[in-house]
């Protein structure tokens, strides 16, 4: 797990700035109403726990995404993109989830041309989501 996390973080951090990897704007990455509905279910501590699980799972799934793109394994790619999409949507990361949905759709149709670029955009977008979530956690603690 530690190795997967390290690899995924290395992949994400190696991305240059760009449309999905540039400046971080937390408010644009996360839907406040979705986060609020999670707070209503279990409070701040629960939201923090969900974010922790998301931040543990996502790098593993991103590593799977990258591996399946390289191996042209459309089934594994579709499943990883699907789970990332669902997890992102659960935390209100709509833009991230939308990119994952697009990759899932392509994988379902076996259209792997451009999948590598899309995976890169997802990795970059994840970095922004992750930073927004981290900021959220820091805000809650302060």
């Amino acid at each position: 797990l530690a190795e997967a996390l390290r690899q995924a973080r290395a992949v994400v951090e190696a991305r240059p700035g760009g449309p999905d990897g540039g400046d971080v704007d937390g408010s644009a990455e996360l839907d406040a109403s979705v986060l609020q509905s999670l707070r209503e279910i279990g409070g701040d501590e629960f939201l923090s726990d969900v974010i922790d699980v998301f931040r543990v799972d996502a790098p593993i799934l991103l590593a799977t995404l990258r591996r399946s793109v390289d191996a042209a394994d459309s089934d594994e790619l579709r499943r990883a993109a699907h789970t990332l999409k669902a997890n992102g949507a659960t935390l209100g990361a709509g833009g991230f989830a939308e990119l994952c949905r697009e990759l899932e759709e392509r994988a379902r149709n076996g259209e792997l041309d451009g999948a590598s670029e899309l995976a890169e955009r997802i990795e970059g977008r994840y970095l922004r989501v992750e930073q927004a979530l981290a900021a959220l956690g820091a805000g809650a603690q302060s």
Partner: protein
Amino acid sequence: VSLPDGGRVLVVDDSAVNRMVLTKALSADGHTSLTAENGLQALELLQAGGEPCVDVVLLDIDMPMLDGYETLARMKSDERLRHLPVIVVSSVEDLDSVVRCIKIGATDYHTKPFNAEVLRARLKASLAEKRLHDLQLEYLEQVGRVTDAAAAIEAEMFAPETLDGVAARDDALGQLARVFQRMAREVADRERRLKAQVQQLRIEIDEACAARKVDEITDTDFFRNLQERANTLRLGSEQVDG
């Protein structure tokens, strides 16, 4: 029928995030939950033991090992599981998936992220449906016990306590069971009284027989002659003593 609020819910989802959110939402509403990470795990849980251990299943579609469609199909082809309400909670949003799940037998279909209010309402309805089903099953089982009791009465092998559970019902079936028990107990009491009477008659008959035998012996010339001789001997003895 009054229904308790809390039910037992199986959450089947390969995403730890989604399992976590769903189970928390369920516990906040007073439900208890079990979790499975894919369809195979879910079926193993549901098929273990006698009766299924849950009232409702929340089922994801896209999962490894065994997806939601196949899990749902296997549940609906299993006699013991087909009555369990299954609410699909999936991020597969296309209409074909919704139609497919409903056709296989899903109770409802929600897309992720789920709306807590809508899911709460659907769960409540599904729990009521499941409990009504459970009550119907229990009723049929108890009707079976009453018909078994009728056969046992015919065979004179009925034990009234076998209907104690049914007799505790406050409906017509319970009344029928109580009537069976009362009749059986009355018959048993009558039998006991008759046996006691027969026993008493036997004693009286035996005593009458003995008395008649005594009469037969004492009411003879030989016995009277013996008595006279005995009296004579007693008188002679008294004169000698005097």
